[in-house]
């Protein structure tokens, strides 16, 4: 039976179902969008807090060229499985210490970028100044985190399906995807094997 031949009652019911479905879809989309942007913002804030804590604890390591201590401080990030790389740069912008220790095959920015946290090519990255209160800058901390925390939350809330789910899936962020200029991070280029502070 063609649509025009439907009884008016059936047409009204179909319209109501269609409108209700549309409203539900739009509301869900708005909710998912709001949740996604809120999570992005919360994830960025959380990484910034971690960055400030690590930076505050790294001042003496940079001021007195203690690479072992810097590595130990950075290694505290192992409790956060989403942090894929962390690097301390000295005042001259040279890599001073990196995390994880066996990151030789991986890559990190060759020099610090502008301060601040941002989403770049599937990663949340940030450059945090390292400075003792009221004094001059001692270096820069770089943190890179995957977006797993966001997708995990979506998965828990049922918005993003797991592999068996027939529903739509949130795109998985790629693994470390460095900015343009990169350098191996296995051994710091400015490790005080020389006198350089």
């Amino acid at each position, binding site marked *: 039976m063609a649509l025009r031949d439907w009884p008016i009652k059936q047409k009204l019911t179909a319209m109501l179902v269609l409108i209700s479905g549309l409203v539900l879809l739009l509301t869900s989309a708005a909710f998912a969008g709001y949740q996604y942007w809120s999570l992005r913002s919360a994830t960025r804030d959380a990484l910034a807090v971690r960055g400030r804590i690590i930076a505050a604890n790294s001042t003496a*390591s940079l001021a*007195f060229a203690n690479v072992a201590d810097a590595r130990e401080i950075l290694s505290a990030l192992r409790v956060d499985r989403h942090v894929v790389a962390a690097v301390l740069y000295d005042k001259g912008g040279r890599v001073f210490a990196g995390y994880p220790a066996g990151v030789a095959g991986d890559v990190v920015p060759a020099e610090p970028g502008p301060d601040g946290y941002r989403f770049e090519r599937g990663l949340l990255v940030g450059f945090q100044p390292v400075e003792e209160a009221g*004094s001059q800058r001692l270096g820069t901390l770089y943190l890179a985190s995957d977006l797993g925390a966001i997708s995990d939350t979506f998965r828990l809330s049922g918005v993003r399906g797991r592999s068996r789910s027939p529903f739509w899936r949130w795109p998985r962020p790629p693994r470390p995807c460095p900015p343009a200029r990169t350098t191996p991070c296995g051994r710091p280029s400015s490790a005080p094997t020389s006198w350089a502070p």
Partner: protein
Amino acid sequence: MALLKITAAVLLVCAARLGAQTKASEAQVKAVFLFNFAQFVDWPPEAVPDSQAPLVIGILGEDPFGDFLDATVRGERRGSRPFAVRRYQRVDDITRCDILFINRSAADAPEEILARLKNRPILTVSDADRFAERGGMIRFVTDRGRIRLQINPVSAEAAHLTISSKLLRVAEVITPPGR
């Protein structure tokens, strides 16, 4: 034979220049460290005449830093306090000083110098042997091409100086015998 002599002479000159460069770099790192100490040490309020008073880094005895220490602190501030570098030949010349580097030559017998500075809020630093054990506050230790720090927090406490735990973390803490 003459060629051998010339080669040996050239090699000697190169080695001497390399040694001098290494020495200069070591002094430069120590100068930067001296400057950085100011960020990790707090002086008692009575040691700071006013909030704009310069933070004085003094050198007792021969100056191993040349102009580098002056260049390092030029234009720098700790809060609102600018830095100043003073050079002293005798302990009696020291009027107001916040960080004092005692040259190894002057610190052969540091006990006498430290006794004269006793209870004054001056952060004493030296690279003299066993300086921290003998009552000094911070000693530079050169170890395999690196400069490590030894800190005697008891001496600093006696002078009412507060050393940041961050600085203690990167240093070897020395406890004087008998404590």
